[in-house]
C-alpha cells in the first residue's frame, strides 16, 4: 500500500521537434471497486479511486481523462501530444480522497 501514488511515465527516447509523441503512464493505485452487502445493496461509503487525470505540456492542458471505477487497478493510460518546444510534460492524477499524484518527464530534442 505504501506504493500508492507511484507514477511511471514512458516517453520515447528520441523525439524530434514537431513530432506527435505517444506517451504511456501508469500509477500505483487500488481503484476501489463498489462493494455490496449480502442483500446486494451497494455499501455507501466514499470509495477511493482516481476520477481525474490531467496531462499538461508547457503548462497547458493537452489531454484529460474523467474516469470512473471501471478503470482497472493500477491504472494505465496512453495518449499523444505534439512536441513543439523542449519543456516539461506532467501527468497529474486526482483521486476521490483529495490526493494528487504527479509524474513528470522532460521533453528534449535529440
Amino acid at each position, binding site marked *: 500500500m505504501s506504493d500508492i501514488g507511484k507514477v511511471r511515465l514512458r516517453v520515447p527516447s528520441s523525439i524530434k521537434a514537431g513530432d506527435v509523441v505517444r506517451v504511456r503512464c501508469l500509477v500505483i493505485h487500488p481503484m476501489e*471497486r463498489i462493494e455490496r452487502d449480502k442483500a446486494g445493496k451497494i455499501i455507501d461509503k466514499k470509495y477511493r479511486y482516481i476520477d481525474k487525470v490531467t496531462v499538461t505540456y508547457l503548462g497547458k492542458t493537452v489531454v484529460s481523462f*474523467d474516469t470512473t471505477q*471501471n478503470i482497472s487497478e493500477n491504472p494505465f493510460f496512453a495518449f499523444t501530444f505534439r512536441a513543439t518546444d523542449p519543456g516539461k510534460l506532467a501527468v497529474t492524477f486526482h483521486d476521490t480522497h483529495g490526493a494528487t499524484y504527479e509524474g513528470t518527464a522532460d521533453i528534449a530534442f535529440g
Partner: protein
Amino acid sequence: MAEVQGLTRRAMLGTLGAVGVAAATAVTLAPRAATAQALGQNESVDAALKRVFGSRAMKDGSGMIKLDIPLIAENGAVVPVSVEVNAPMTPQGYVKHIYVIADKNRIPIVTRAVLTPESGQAYVGANIRLGETGDVRAIVEQSDGTLLQVKREVKVTVGGCGG
C-alpha cells in the same frame, strides 16, 4: 450554530441537485466534482447514453475509429483498450471527447477523454474493467458536435467488477 449549519447544508444540497440536473442537460462543463460524480452512475447503458448525449443522432464511425480491444478477455479486471480516430486535429476541427462505454457494467461509462488540438492525434489507451461479456463501445464527439460510434463484443471469462 449547528442548526444554521444544517439549514445551509440542506439548502446547498438542494441547489446542487438542481445544478446537477442542469449540467446533465446543458453541454457546458460543470465543475470537476459534479462531472466526475455525474459520469459514473449506476444505471443501464441506455439511460447513460440518454443522459450524456440526449437524443442526438449517432453515426456509424467504423470507417474512422479504430477500437482496439481483445475479443476474449481472460481476466475482466484488466482489459487493455485503445481508441484511435483517423481525423485531423486542428483548431478548426478536432476530436473533442472520446468516451469508452461498457454496456454490461453496472456503471456503464468507463472514461471520458477530453482532447485538444495540441494532442496532435486522437489516440487514447487505458486498462479497464469488464464485469461480464458484452459490447464495448467507443463514442467520439467532434468539435462540431458530430457523434460517431463503434462497438465490439468482448467475451469475458472471469469478471472484474466485483460485487
